[in-house]
């Protein structure tokens, strides 16, 4: 290029077209290059050409100065880790000034917040971190199970299961009509079918070039995020009071997702999806070694409460399946059943009295006082236990009473986990 330029100038000079000052073609070439030059983004030959010209041409020298100063003003786009508390503060502040006509119901707020936190984590991750292997874990038949997938695979999994709730809310089911999905109500089948479509199911499949990177992951990221937004919007449209509504059917997998009092309420389904979003965001964060905080205290409290309310059903299920270690005691009408005092510590904690003999038996104050066992554990640990991320024998920070009952309750908590 530089040689080329010399030829041009030589020709121009030979033709006598340039009398004084720099040759016009050089001037044009230099002005075109000024931006690249100011950013130190042209070749050595071009830099020499530009700098030689600047000595002779005041107009170019002036522009070059201005552009070089401007280049110094460019700041790298910073990846800001905004505190999750700021989100709640800003939104609450806005709503205090002008109440929403269409508020987000309290039971959909955790899903809204957890999806936003996972979204921020994904935005923060470097391209190659999308290649990270993410192990998923759960308990089944009282043993640990696991499957290793990718970041995109986790998002596919979340989307496949959020899709059940989407369908219930009158939104499109992302897996509707998917060939190979024989039972669209079976959560595990849904995840496997989604993975079969995207090819994100196994971590081994991502060895290929570019597979599993951000660009590829975007195919899973955007649809997952849109669906969570649509779910929050649908909850707003439905209204807070409708959260009480009982949902027919167990929405898949009744064994492992014991319904509270026999049927799930809409609000609990939303909380369960927030719980799953947090759990899997934690899996991703762990895989890429990012810190990940628990949900905001009021949200954490709702998730702990949901988990505690699901526990009696899981205890009863294990007893029916013959997995219980403690002796069965049939409740007779009118006599109170035994209870376990579950003390959850931390900002999301509280006290729950878990009926041990019948999941539907109400727990009276007297029965609560006479709890046959007492287990204390941390709020986050309790959730991680129920998510299959912590083993039952590692969970409790304190326990008193019949060790078989305590074992059964903690194992029943772990038994609520699933893929």
């Amino acid at each position, binding site marked *: 290029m530089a040689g080329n330029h010399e030829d041009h100038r030589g020709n121009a000079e030979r033709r006598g077209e340039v009398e004084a000052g720099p040759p016009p073609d050089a001037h044009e070439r230099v002005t075109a290059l000024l*931006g690249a030059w100011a950013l130190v983004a042209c070749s050595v030959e071009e830099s020499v050409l530009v700098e030689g010209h600047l000595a002779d041409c005041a107009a170019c020298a002036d522009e070059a100065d201005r552009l070089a100063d401007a280049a110094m003003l460019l700041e790298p786009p910073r990846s800001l880790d905004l505190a999750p508390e700021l*989100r709640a503060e800003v939104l609450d502040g*806005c709503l205090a000034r002008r109440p929403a006509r*269409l508020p987000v119901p309290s039971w959909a707020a955790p899903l809204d917040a957890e999806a*936003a936190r996972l979204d921020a984590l994904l935005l923060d991750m470097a391209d190659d971190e999308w290649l990270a292997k993410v192990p998923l874990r759960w308990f089944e038949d009282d043993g640990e199970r696991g499957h290793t997938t990718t970041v995109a695979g986790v998002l596919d999994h979340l989307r496949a299961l959020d899709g059940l709730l989407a369908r219930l809310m009158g939104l499109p089911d992302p897996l509707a009509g998917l060939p190979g999905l024989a039972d669209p109500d079976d959560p595990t089948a849904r995840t496997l079918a989604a993975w079969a479509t995207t090819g994100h199911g196994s971590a081994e499949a991502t060895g290929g070039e570019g597979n599993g990177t951000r660009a590829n992951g975007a195919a899973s990221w955007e649809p997952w995020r849109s669906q969570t*937004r649509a779910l929050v919007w649908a909850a707003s449209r439905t209204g807070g009071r409708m959260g009480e509504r009982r949902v027919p059917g167990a929405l898949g997998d009744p064994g492992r997702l014991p319904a509270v009092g026999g049927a799930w309420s809409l609000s609990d389904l939303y909380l369960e999806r927030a719980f799953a979003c947090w759990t899997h965001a934690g899996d991703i964060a762990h895989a890429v070694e990012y810190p990940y905080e628990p949900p905001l205290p009021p949200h954490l409290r709702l998730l702990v409460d949901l988990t505690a309310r699901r526990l009696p059903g899981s205890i009863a299920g294990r007893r029916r399946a013959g997995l219980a270690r403690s002796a069965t005691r049939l409740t007779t009408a009118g006599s109170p059943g035994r209870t376990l005092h579950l003390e959850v510590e931390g900002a999301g904690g509280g006290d729950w009295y878990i009926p041990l003999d019948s999941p539907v038996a109400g727990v009276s104050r007297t029965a609560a006082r006479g709890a046959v066992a007492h287990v204390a554990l941390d709020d986050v640990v309790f959730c991680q236990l129920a998510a299959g991320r912590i083993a039952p024998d590692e969970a409790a920070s304190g326990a008193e009473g019949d060790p078989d009952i305590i074992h059964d309750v903690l194992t029943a908590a772990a038994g609520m986990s699933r893929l």
Partner: protein
Amino acid sequence: MAHETPPHWDRNMRERLRRGEAAALAELYDRFASLAFGIAQRVLDDEAATGQVTREVFATIWESPDRFDPRQSTMRAWIAGQAHRLAVSRLRQRAAGPETHAQVRDAATAARADYIVTAMPAPLREALELTRFQRQDYRQMAERLGINENEARRRLRLGLQLLSSAARYGAESAEASEAPAHAGEREAR
């Protein structure tokens, strides 16, 4: 930078804010909070004050969605402009001596530069970011973006010309920033 929004998204968002949809407010926050926070932080360098500016930006549009006019600017540019203006005025309230006056000017210039980069058309911004932060020369950048070398040189020059107006206007003219960015937008199309 991620989270570019098309014009129909901006219009639809304003409509949902008008209707008082809290979910829309949350979505707006998720897309633009780090933009507003980043610009305010560059001016104020103070976490608490930066959080205040961020609150104020979102409260303004939530209370009066019509303050944003999709025919005048993009949502992204509007949020960036608000964050810049509120941050500079907060800094000015704090400022007293001649030293702080220079500080206000420098911070305002830096924030204006951020704002201009935010508001400029994406093709110009990408060209600048690839060369400046990924240290690509303009030929590599051209290849990466699938454009010819002439166009690559043109984008860098035009982008820096827009940016150089940040230093030309003083701290007083946060509003004037929309003019150059929009001129660039027309030229880039």
